[in-house]
């Protein structure tokens, strides 16, 4: 079973090479990409089942035993992230294929799109599966390099302007991460996560704290946590719709995943919980206030994206099993919903020629299905019962109340406020873009939306609803994952079965 483990990384990489060779034959190229991501998704599901039933799946690459060689580890958290991310990437790929076929699209994906997209997927899966701090760094770099190409796709003036901000900020965070990796190695003599878990415990407290803060700083930039989040709403919205969707869904969540991993496995004990709670609260409130002020759908959703990262950080900062389970559930929910919303924004752009709220109106009447596709995930994001957004927020707020204390109580209040403001923002978009009388931009001749684009969006909306229906079993998995993360022993024992060398 563990032989399947490298497939989610290797298959997209090989697919990328193949699609690059097939650049002149778009049909075959599309088929290869879809096939690769389908394989990745299937393997991910198998891995999740395996990890849930029998504990973490571990593979030492090249047969080198763990502390020396590189290991890939799929515990429940990693496998769950893998499943959701590959499902989302597959849907977005289908959407982009649909967009490429539509004749009206000005921003049709170019030849380089498919190879780069597959490399991005490989980077994301590699980051999830890495059992080694340096391999995690390499995973980040793979996905960053691919994202640089995707965000500046076409090389237009706006994309270069916003892309340069994104590139510089990402490189800076990588440098901080790399420096932290170097310092961790200097302090402990290892980078294997399981071995680090033991060796970091023996370090003096202040050295440990310095390393922890440095890693957190690097991941917080990638996850767009408040004081370090200003780059995100500036750089994401200008990219093509499928690219923005997959960035919004996955890239920040890889950062959140890295934060969860390091906070639980490497630095348990909650030394920085207070700090994390403060930034989580600020991320929520400042992010959503930014969204309130926006007049463009894509920018608005970028701000809600930043805002809702705060919920996940809040769950991590509680460092209780309930909080962590809520955070993991929220990550799964948010990947799906945020991606869906950006895809819908792409559909709106395709249909009405703009995502600017000042030029939109009457979409609910002209395109009823589009209205439904927007309404369901928007209400889900805002946390209206019975959707998964409500369940995730409820889980987190309950965990916050159970934790007790002034700071968690403040965070619960901030979370509720954010949820209400998200509802305000969502209904504002609904009222302006969908409900009011048609505006200038919308009265252009009707465009038939490509079936594949709509189909992929419908699939993602349905996936989001499935998360709601299957929330019970899913919460079981996340609770189990959270317990495993907090106890640390299942992970360490799976990687180093013979004990510490």
């Amino acid at each position, binding site marked *: 079973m563990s032989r399947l483990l490298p497939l989610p990384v290797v298959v997209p990489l090989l697919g990328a090479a193949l699609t690059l060779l097939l650049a002149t034959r778009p049909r075959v190229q599309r088929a290869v990409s879809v096939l690769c991501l389908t394989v990745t998704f299937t393997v991910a599901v198998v891995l999740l089942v395996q990890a849930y039933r029998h504990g973490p799946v571990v593979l030492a690459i090249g047969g080198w035993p763990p502390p020396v060689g590189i290991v890939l580890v799929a515990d429940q958290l990693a496998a769950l992230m893998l499943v959701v991310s590959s499902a989302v990437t597959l849907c977005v790929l289908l959407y982009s294929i649909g967009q490429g076929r539509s004749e009206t699209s000005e921003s049709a994906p170019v030849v380089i799109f498919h190879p780069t997209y597959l490399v991005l997927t490989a980077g994301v899966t590699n980051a999830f599966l890495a059992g080694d701090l340096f391999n995690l760094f390499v995973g980040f770099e793979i996905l960053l390099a691919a994202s640089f190409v995707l965000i500046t796709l076409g090389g237009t003036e706006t994309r*270069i*302007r916003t892309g*340069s901000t994104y590139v510089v900020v990402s490189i800076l965070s990588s440098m901080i991460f790399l420096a932290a990796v170097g310092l961790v190695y200097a302090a402990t003599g290892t980078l294997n996560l399981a071995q680090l878990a033991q060796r970091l415990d023996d370090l003096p407290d202040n050295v440990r704290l310095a390393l922890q803060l440095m890693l957190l700083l690097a991941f917080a930039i990638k996850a767009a946590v408040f004081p370090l989040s200003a780059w995100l709403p500036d750089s994401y919205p200008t990219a093509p719709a499928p690219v923005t969707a997959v960035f919004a869904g996955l890239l920040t969540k890889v950062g959140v995943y890295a934060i969860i991993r390091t906070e639980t496995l490497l630095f348990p004990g909650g030394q920085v919980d207070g700090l994390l709670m403060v930034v989580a609260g600020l991320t929520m409130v400042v992010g959503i206030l930014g969204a309130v002020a926006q007049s463009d759908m894509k920018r608005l959703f970028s701000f809600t994206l930043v805002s809702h990262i705060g919920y996940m950080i809040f769950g991590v900062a509680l460092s209780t099993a309930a909080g962590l389970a809520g955070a993991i559930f929220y990550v799964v929910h948010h990947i799906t919903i945020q991606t869906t919303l950006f895809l819908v924004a792409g559909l709106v752009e395709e249909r009405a020629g703009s995502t600017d709220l000042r030029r939109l109106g009457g979409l609910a009447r002209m395109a009823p299905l589009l209205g439904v596709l927007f309404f369901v995930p928007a209400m889900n994001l805002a946390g209206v019962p019975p959707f998964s957004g409500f369940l995730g927020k409820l889980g987190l707020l309950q965990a916050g109340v159970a934790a007790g204390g002034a700071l968690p109580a403040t965070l619960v209040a901030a979370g509720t406020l954010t949820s209400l403001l998200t509802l305000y923002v969502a209904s504002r978009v609904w009222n302006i873009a969908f409900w009011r009388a048609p505006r200038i931009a919308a009265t252009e001749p009707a465009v*038939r939306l490509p079936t594949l684009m709509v189909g992929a969006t419908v699939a993602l909306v349905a996936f989001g609803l499935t998360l709601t229906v299957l929330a019970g079993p899913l919460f079981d998995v996340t609770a189990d994952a959270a317990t495993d993360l907090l106890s640390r022993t299942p992970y360490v024992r799976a990687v180093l079965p013979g004990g510490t060398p």
Partner: protein
Amino acid sequence: MTASDAGPTMVLVLAVAVLVGCGVILLLERSLTRILLGVILLGNGVNLLILLGGRSGGAPVVGTGPVDEMSDPLPQAMVLTAIVITFGFTAFLLAVAYRSWYLTGDDEVPDDLEDRQIIRRAGRNEAGAVDHGGEGPNGDPEQVDPEPARRRLRRGRGDGPR
């Protein structure tokens, strides 16, 4: 672990400090070319830092000497990867800077759209007016007269995304 007790030499530590310091200062500039130089300096500084994390000593080749006196090969392997990555990023940033110069005649990173809008609005002392356009009972003819709404509804059904 005898060689590592002394720690890395002061000169190398200072070199890291100078490289990183200069890199950070250059990163704060507005021009992409200077930022690029900053990234190069910062990257080299960090790579040197990783190299300092390992034990120094002889060549880490089995059979050339006692294992205790060998240098630590792992940071060297890591730094090779890191150099390649820094190189790739540098090349990409160079391409972005060139493209920016090609398109705008300048490689300066401008203020973002939002900032400029806010400055403009603050100058004119006005608030954002997104929500007010065409809102209210008088702005929406259908709220006054429901008849056209139904006709539109019927006609609109045909061109929805089905």
